[in-house]
């Protein structure tokens, strides 16, 4: 009796499945609500915003606000929109994310697989760094950067982000690597692989999910950072959040919410892109088959 029937789901299973999807979609709707408000607003013109309600649909699709936010809105004396600042942000974000992720991965690797006396203590001490209110370190950091001669430069800003990001990246990686069987590292050591080779050939390839999480975290944190960005950037290296802030925080003249919202969405696009791209790598079971028992 060759039947190709797949696992027959019982009625209860079906109901549960429906409930599951319903729950997931409801939550999705809740999460989306503010975004929909923002999106709708960004598509309305100023008049519609003034007269309509939050969820009322725009009269016509109107992307003026978007183009204005992109390259027309004023952010200070220039009125070039957000566009020029994107480059600045990328210049900061890419090296900062890369360096802090790499450092975090290496630190995590050491703390979980090359323990030495005091490495746990080091980790604990580093964690405290996660809890320092960033406002506290603005002034001393400014002085340090001044001393190093990289005040108000991109380099300086990258350094700041790396320094305060590395505690988190280390935490993520260490906690992930904790579950990688020690035998793997042992086997590789016997095979003659050195510290970095093991890292690169054995550990990194199974780190995909945590790299994704770390990159998501770091990218978001740094891309959306305003405090460091404003305090430590130079006038021509301001990140996009500062521009967004300038754009939104007008204290005079008619407030163009549509442009604000469009700008906010635009500013979030790279991050969203990272989420979508990185999301693919939430893969299963990278250490499967590694060891027995």
């Amino acid at each position, binding site marked *: 009796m060759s039947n190709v029937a797949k696992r027959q789901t019982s009625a209860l299973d079906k109901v549960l499945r429906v409930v599951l999807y319903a729950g997931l979609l409801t939550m999705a709707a809740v999460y989306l609500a503010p975004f929909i408000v923002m999106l709708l607003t960004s598509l309305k013109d100023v008049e519609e915003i003034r007269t309509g309600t939050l969820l009322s649909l725009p009269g016509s699709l109107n992307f003026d606000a978007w183009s204005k936010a992109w390259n027309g809105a004023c952010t200070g004396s220039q009125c070039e929109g957000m566009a020029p600042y994107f480059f600045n942000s990328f210049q900061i974000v890419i090296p900062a994310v890369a360096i802090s992720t790499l450092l975090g991965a290496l630190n995590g690797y050491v703390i979980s697989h090359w323990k030495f006396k005091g490495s746990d203590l080091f980790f604990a001490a580093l964690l405290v760094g996660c809890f320092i209110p960033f406002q506290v370190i603005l002034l001393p950091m400014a002085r340090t950067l001044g001393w190093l001669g990289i005040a108000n430069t991109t380099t300086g800003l990258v350094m700041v982000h790396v320094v305060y990001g590395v505690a988190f990246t280390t935490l993520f990686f260490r906690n992930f690597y904790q579950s990688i069987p020690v035998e793997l590292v*042992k086997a*590789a050591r016997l095979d003659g692989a050195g510290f970095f080779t093991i890292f690169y050939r054995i550990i990194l390839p199974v780190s995909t999910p945590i790299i994704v999480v770390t990159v998501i975290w770091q990218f978001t944190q740094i891309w959306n950072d305003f405090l460091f960005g404003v305090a430590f950037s130079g006038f021509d290296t301001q990140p996009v959040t500062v521009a967004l802030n300038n754009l939104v925080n007008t204290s005079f003249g008619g407030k163009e919410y549509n442009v604000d919202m469009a700008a906010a969405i635009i500013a979030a696009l790279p991050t969203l892109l990272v989420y979508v791209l990185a999301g693919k790598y939430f893969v299963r*079971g990278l250490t*499967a*088959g*590694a*060891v027995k028992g």
Partner: protein
Amino acid sequence: MASLTIDNVKKRYGQTEILKGINISIEAGEFLILVGPSGCGKSTLMNSIAGLEDVSEGRILIGDNDVTYASPKDRDIAMVFQSYALYPNMTVAENISFGLEMRKVPKEEREAEVERVAEMLQIGHLLKRKPAQLSGGQRQRVAMGRALARRPKMYLFDEPLSNLDAKLRVEMRTEIKKLHQKLGTTIVYVTHDQIEAMTLADRIAVMKDGEVQQLGTPQEIYDNPTNLFVAGFMGSPAMNFIPAKVVEQAGSYALELQASQPTIVPFPKPESLANHVGKEILLGLRPEMITEPQPHKEGADFVVTADVDVEVTEPMGADTMILTRVQGAEVNCRSNPAYPAKSGETIAMMFDTSKAVAFDKDSGVRLDN
């Protein structure tokens, strides 16, 4: 290839001492087999030799070098882990060639080597798979392959064949033996398979509770166990320990035991029993020394025939095991399947004590040594 000296090595996990001062010393090119009950510290010792665990005390020398604190990769050792420890992200081929790559072997050579090893281990068709897509035995062979691809000073094999079928195991055993003969690399090998141990080893170290009980050639261990533990541990089915009373007989000493009737059996070194006259000792007699009566042995020295009560019979193909009870102790006898023994019957069995040994009942110490 290099000699190996393990000098009073101790290893503690927290409070518990796992290795309690191991002393083993083998020549370059020797094949050492570690046996011992589960949890006695074999893997721990292997790990210590490889440098994967720091020892708490003692020294390890490979050749003349004290490697106690050397890093694993400087010891030039290849190891098969009991738990395999395959690289999950690499294919079988990559797993095997990784060690070579690390030692900067050119690509073509690596490929050739992978092929050679894969063929030997019969995993040629699996080279492109990831470990997760393999069966248990296949994984184990990949783990083997990873070690065999290299030409290190020393191989460590931790139960490398436990998950293979008998046929394959025999083949692999032969391959390992050939390899050893060809390369002469020093090998330390853990196994629970008695036949493996007997056929492969130059020397066997029997461990128990983190201590080496006896270190010797397979034949020494089998014939001349130093104590009750070793005697009982090696050999399958295990040696029978039959409580027997030392009696004086014709100026010499013999043993009296209680089969279905009291029976006096001779002992090869009667003088060693002198101090125990009248006391009960344990007579060690391997199952193959208690057989159906064999006409050609009839009348030889140290051969006695006695009636025993059959409790259970266990046909095992080549032989049938007959379980009897002598002086309250279970005794395994190995008989020809043709010999008609049935549960509950009393039948004649032939006791050949020419290789019998004797142990103190309480301490387990060998008496006739």
